[in-house]
């Protein structure tokens, strides 16, 4: 059985090959202190994204008005927004390559998946990295309620799940114009983000929350904005509690989010989700209940919640119950081969797409493009398919061909990448390969490296 240090790196990080936290205490301590990776490899801020989107829309109008030369400018504007997306992907991978605290990056992507938001088109997609850095990342070691509130007030989510277009039928705007409710985000907040599909809510709760959430909107220059003239006036009853009354305000909406974040159904839903993601597709019920208790007692204070997870013996059970998703597999490969964040960060968008993003899509996981707001599936069998494995193998071979010199002796590479998690059988096969590159590829395609 692997040592705890190996388990910590593989189960809660992006594997061995680069320095990481080492122990349960180290994992938690690593969440304290400044977020150096975000500062070192920044992504575009919201104001930059909004200004690109405004200029794209102006060019779009110019093209429709038949202005000379506008078409080429519009294409350039769209390319810039697409580049924001691809560069954000590059920065995410650069952070993974360099970080001494990979648990933080794992948590960022766990929560980004939990609060999945996908660009509606190539233009909107340019805001995806910004959404993760602004709504998710600052809160991964803080309070779940704060993250939830940041998500439901972020323009990227408001557009993705249609909230920005939802209007209270009895609001000023609703009475003046023929517009009304859209319950998309309200439903997903309860079903996916908080209570869970079995969390005891009804269609009435969904409708009431949708009415309460009207007014969450966006402004082309300022980003998020609460527009009282779009908000339904009145009282709203959600899960047995009443919100609203008087003039509609943002505080009414946020109060409901605070309650949903602390609800016992949310604690149970999220405890299970964390255990499934980090430990096993079918986790020990005692582990789940220990996490849920910590959630309820702390009101969703995430550092407490993770401590409860890491404190349970099931978190240190033998490795291999889960498959690394393609994003994790690519990130773990970069760390194993000793890629430097600086080099990844400086790749141009075309190279990032060719070498990293497209192969990841072929493995079944195009970056930040899950097909629905429920995010990516967890089961190992979903990822280790003939198709997905074939692409992993083909990509691993191209990586080891390209980096054969840097990787060096495949047996030493095996020790760096898997240490005591490697089986004897793998050790033998790596030594029996025809070339160094092929031996190194065997390490990367092995079940040990593709599981965690």
């Amino acid at each position: 059985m692997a040592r705890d240090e190996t388990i910590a790196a593989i189960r809660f990080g992006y594997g061995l090959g680069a320095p990481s936290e080492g122990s349960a205490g180290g994992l938690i301590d690593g969440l304290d202190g400044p977020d150096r990776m975000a500062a070192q490899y920044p992504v575009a801020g919201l104001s930059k994204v909004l200004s690109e989107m405004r200029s794209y829309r102006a060019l779009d109008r110019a093209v429709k008005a038949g202005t000379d030369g506008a078409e080429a400018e519009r294409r350039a504007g769209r390319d810039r927004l697409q580049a924001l997306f691809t560069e954000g992907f590059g920065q995410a991978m650069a952070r993974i390559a360099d970080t001494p605290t990979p648990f933080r990056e794992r948590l960022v992507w766990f929560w980004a998946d939990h609060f999945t938001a996908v660009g509606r088109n190539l233009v909107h997609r340019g805001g995806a990295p910004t959404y993760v850095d602004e709504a998710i990342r600052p809160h991964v070691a803080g309070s779940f309620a704060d993250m939830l509130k940041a998500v439901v007030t972020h323009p990227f989510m408001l557009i993705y799940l249609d909230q920005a277009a939802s209007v209270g039928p009895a609001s000023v705007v609703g009475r003046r114009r023929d517009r009304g409710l859209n319950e998309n985000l309200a439903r997903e907040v309860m079903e996916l983000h908080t209570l869970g599909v079995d969390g005891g809510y009804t269609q009435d709760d969904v409708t009431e929350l949708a009415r309460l959430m009207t007014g969450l909107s966006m402004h082309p220059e300022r980003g998020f904005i609460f527009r009282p003239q779009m908000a339904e006036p009145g009282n709203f009853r959600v899960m047995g509690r009443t919100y609203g009354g008087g003039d509609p305000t943002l505080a009414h909406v946020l109060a409901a989010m605070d309650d949903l974040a602390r609800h016992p159904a949310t604690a149970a839903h999220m405890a299970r989700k964390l255990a499934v993601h980090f430990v096993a597709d079918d986790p020990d019920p005692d582990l789940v209940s220990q996490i849920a208790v910590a959630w309820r007692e702390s009101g969703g204070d995430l550092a407490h919640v993770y401590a409860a997870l890491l404190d349970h013996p099931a978190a240190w059970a033998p490795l291999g119950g889960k498959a690394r998703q393609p994003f994790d597999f690519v990130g773990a490969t970069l760390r194993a081969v000793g890629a430097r964040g600086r080099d990844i960060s400086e790749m141009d968008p075309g190279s990032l797409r060719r070498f990293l993003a497209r192969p990841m899509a072929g493995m079944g996981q195009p970056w930040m493009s899950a097909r629905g707001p429920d995010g990516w599936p967890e089961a190992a069998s979903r990822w280790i398919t003939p198709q997905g494995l074939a692409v992993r193998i083909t990509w691993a071979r191209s990586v080891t061909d390209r980096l054969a010199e840097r990787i060096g002796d495949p047996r030493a590479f095996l020790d760096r990448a898997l240490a005591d998690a490697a089986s004897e059988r793998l050790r033998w096969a790596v030594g029996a390969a025809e070339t160094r590159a092929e031996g190194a590829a065997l390490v990367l395609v092995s079940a040990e490296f593709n599981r965690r």
Partner: protein
Amino acid sequence: MAVSRRGLLKGAAAMACSAAAHPLMTSVTFAAAPWDARLVVLILRGGMDGLDAVRPVGDPALASARPSMVRDGVPLNGFWQMHPALSGLEPLWRAEELAFAHAVSTPYRDGRSHFDGQDMLEAGTAPGMGAARDGWLNRLLQTVPGTEGRTAFAIGREELKVLAGPAEVANWSPATPFDLSPQARLLLGEIYAGDPLFAGAAAEAMELAGSIAAARETEDADPQMMEMMQAGGGAAERALAAFAAEQLRQETRIAAFSINGWDTHRDQAGPMRRALGRLAEAILTLKEGLGPVWAKTTVIAMTEFGRTVRENGTRGTDHGTGGAMVFAGGAVRGGRVMGTWPGLNEAELLDRRDLMPTGDVRAYAAWAMRDGFGLGANVLEASVFPGLRMGEDPGLLL
């Protein structure tokens, strides 16, 4: 007897695998499945608005429920009109190779969750039965002796629960390059020996990649398909459908893939037009690629739920219940809209918001399998769709 004959033929086919697509080899491919009919199941993810795809324009309540929605379309008969994005399918309607069932749903009620709805659609079960671990197409394979790894094909990079389960199913996506040296194959076999998930996936990948490449007439089919898989505007659906047709012309009898993009909460006109366009492309590409095999083919397109009868405040529709399903193929008794119309007046709706389901999508799928594959109603109602009552025979296939 049957087993040994199949084994023999399989060996012969393996030796002559570059000839597998040759027309003279069809007698071999016939033996690979216990029937000759072809079934294609398209899972429309996101909740297709059946009332917009196939519009009951003869119901006077439609116009007031959906004041902002466009009303021009392809008239089918006095009562029904097809969305203009499906106009490419009009020749199929006239040739009686296209049919619809309306006011249908799975037994899923009240939750209106895409994900639970799709799970139930693909499991083919009803609420309260516990979660089925396998999909209904996989259970169909489990009930029929003599199916092989290629009898059924799950196509694309996404999960297809409808085909998942203990019966062996092929799983591949067009345009997957995979070329290994003999030594690399041996070593892979060695390192995966202790892990059935990896061993099985790798063995199937090697087999599929080898035989698909060998059956291709041209070398550049993969790069072409790869480009299509990455392009928009229905190109990916064309690639999936062309690949499905290629397999169905050989020994495959069942193929399934997904078409996404039906969750039209806002400004429905655009996304609906694009999604229906992709569906039409997929059906027309299947017809073209299948050639004479189209005559034996049934395509069924089904979705997890329909959408609200009334348009919402943002010129879209929210999650509902009753909806429509689409049938196409030379085997279909087409040119009609099946089902019992419940009406669109408020009192006739489910929860005063959704189209009231009067038929079960599983019953239509069951009748298609009874007619096409000769399966008994007892098997269909007990094993494939446990607890289903198939009801009256709609005479789905010719």
